């Protein structure tokens, strides 16, 4: 057993509340039945409660009374195995919703990852490679900077050079799920909402942050975005990607003072619909269902989720019938594409793939499954391509924009 004797700081990135949470876990097992990773892998040794109680043991051995008397003594092999397990998580946060003692797991795992990464554990090479790509291209896909705004140029909509309201595109929407960005911008334009877009956006920092990277690169990406948005006169900034939203709302402020308010684009569009500024004139006949993305429903574990707003938008479309899946709102399922899992454990991510969500959507009798997350959209369409489901899988604003 290789033992770490000195210099072990396992609580460096944990807040006081998180340290209390480690001690609050009663090992009741409620989280186990809700964890999508356990659902897929059937690995009952890597459950949220085991991760918490294991880390609690490590913290006690490194910082507790025994450590004060006999010195810290951590088994590096066990810590390495633990680090592998903690990266097998999408940070969907379902465990935190059902936890009877209210542990905020969504915040906890990235901070534990940060600690372990600094000690040299975890998928270090993959994270280093991601950081290097972000340093060069400022998007996680290693795609050309000049292609970032292609979707906007093709749209023939010109945002204002400066405005109080800014739409934050984000890398996923700019490079992959352009339909989402297009839907959002069409909705804003149809409502005559003045908006601007910071065309020199960098990555929001989420991919690195959730994987536990706390390097200067994260700060650099964030600072660039904040300064750029500020220079455009933005007082309210609305992203669409739920991961951008979560990190902009909860993490950016840890790096720099944010001179604008962060809201989600679905909140903005719902307000436009309710105020009558945005009207849907084309009816849609048939049933649709909606999938709540993890970071919109459960928030960053703080519950300030965007849940009813997309439903209000959908219900405003004439003729539409919105039906709910068995697991919706705070209990919606995760398709395995979040929390950095696609990068840290692509095989597990692919295995998770969202089959359960598609089955639940089919069971509602809906023709269309509406999504509000680029990673979910990509993953569910992958399932569609494998399973030949008749379900149409579309982004909610992309869908709604066609009914204007």
């Amino acid at each position, binding site marked *: 057993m290789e033992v770490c004797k000195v210099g072990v700081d396992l*609580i460096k*990135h*944990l*807040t*006081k*509340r*998180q*340290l*209390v*949470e480690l*001690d*609050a*876990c*009663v*090992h009741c*097992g*409620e989280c*186990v*039945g*809700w964890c999508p990773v*356990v659902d897929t892998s059937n690995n*009952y040794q890597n*459950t949220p*409660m*085991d991760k918490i*109680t294991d880390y609690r043991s490590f*913290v*006690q051995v490194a*910082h*507790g*009374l025994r450590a*004060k008397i006999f010195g810290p003594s951590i088994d590096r092999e066990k810590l390495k195995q633990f680090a592998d397990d903690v990266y097998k998580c999408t940070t969907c946060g379902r465990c935190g*919703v*059902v*936890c*009877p*003692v*209210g*542990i*905020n797991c969504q915040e906890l795992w990235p901070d534990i990852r940060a600690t372990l990464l600094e000690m040299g554990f975890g998928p270090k090479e993959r994270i280093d490679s991601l950081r290097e790509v972000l340093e060069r291209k400022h998007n996680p896909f290693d795609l050309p900077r000049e292609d970032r705004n292609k979707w906007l140029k093709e749209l023939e909509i010109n945002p204002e050079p400066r405005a109080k309201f800014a739409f934050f595109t984000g890398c996923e929407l700019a490079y992959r799920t352009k339909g989402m960005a297009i839907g959002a911008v069409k909705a804003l334009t149809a409502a005559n909402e003045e908006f601007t877009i910071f065309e020199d956006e960098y990555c929001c920092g989420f991919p690195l942050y959730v994987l536990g990277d706390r390097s200067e690169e994260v700060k650099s990406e964030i600072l660039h975005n904040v300064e750029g948005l500020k220079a455009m006169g933005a007082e309210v900034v609305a992203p669409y990607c739920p991961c951008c939203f979560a990190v902009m709302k909860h993490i950016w402020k840890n790096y720099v003072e944010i001179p604008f308010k962060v809201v989600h684009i679905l909140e903005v569009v719902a307000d436009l619909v309710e105020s009558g500024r945005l009207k849907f004139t084309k009816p849609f006949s048939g049933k649709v269902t909606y999938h709540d993305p993890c970071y919109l429903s*459960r*928030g960053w*574990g*703080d*519950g300030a*989720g965007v849940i009813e707003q997309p439903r209000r938008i959908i219900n405003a479309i004439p003729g539409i019938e919105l039906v709910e899946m068995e697991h919706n709102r*705070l*209990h919606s399922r995760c398709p395995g594409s979040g929390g950095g899992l696609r990068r840290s454990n692509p095989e597990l991510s692919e295995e998770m793939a969202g089959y359960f969500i598609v089955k639940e959507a089919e069971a509602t009798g809906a023709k269309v499954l509406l999504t509000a997350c680029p990673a979910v959209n990509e993953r569910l369409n992958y399932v569609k391509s494998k399973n030949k489901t008749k379900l149409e899988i579309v982004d909610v604003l992309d869908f709604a924009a066609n009914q204007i």
Partner: protein
Amino acid sequence: MLVDQATREVFWNIPAQMQVFFYLAAGLTVLVFIAGFLGRISIWTKGKEDEFGRFGRLDFIRLAVTSFFSPDCILARRSFSIAAYRGVMLLFIIWGFTTLFAGTALLTIDHYAIKFLQGSVYFVYSLALDAAGALLLTGVLVALLRRYLVRSVSMVTSYEDSLFLFLLLAILLLGFSIEGIRISALKPEDFDYSPVGFLFSKIFGFEGDSLLALYRLLWTAHFALAFVFIAYLPFSKMFHLFAAQITVSAASRRYGGLQGGR
């Protein structure tokens, strides 16, 4: 004994030497508990600043006490939102435990300071503690049933889960047993207003020195296990007794209130 003189004799049938041993063991237990407790809470104070600002140990102790009396904790609302039986189980355990703890504290005050557990006050006290013991026993039995008989695939039981449930069960059964023996030996008026103790007294229906010797043996086992429980508590998952109410209160401010499973 006349009704208005009814009271609890502390250390009944316990010779002085055993009482000395009791106090020595109690002192050691308290020292170990305090060392563990402070060691655990000290870690909390080392975390990064958050909504707890610059909380020190005393702040966390105060928060743990005040949070305990919040509706979310004292009514186990989060557990009820998961499943009704879980809420009931937890309520029985919380109320049973708290009442027994308070009862022990009151008995200590009565024994060393002001005598007030007499007559009708004593009967209310005795009945309340018997009810609390019965509640706690029921809660523990439900927890054991859940872990060992009605198992779901998500129920993963560690040695600590087993240890504490069986420890609590043993402490409770021993406690009722020694109460039963005392009632059987003393035959107090109205069975001391201890219905559960009265039931246990039927098991120990014999008389004489062997009964008194059994009492001393079971009493020793009861307090030994209780002291093990207390001393080990801050080094185990049972420390959630102090942490969970803080996190439950913090969680109640999220998600617009309660959530839970369905």
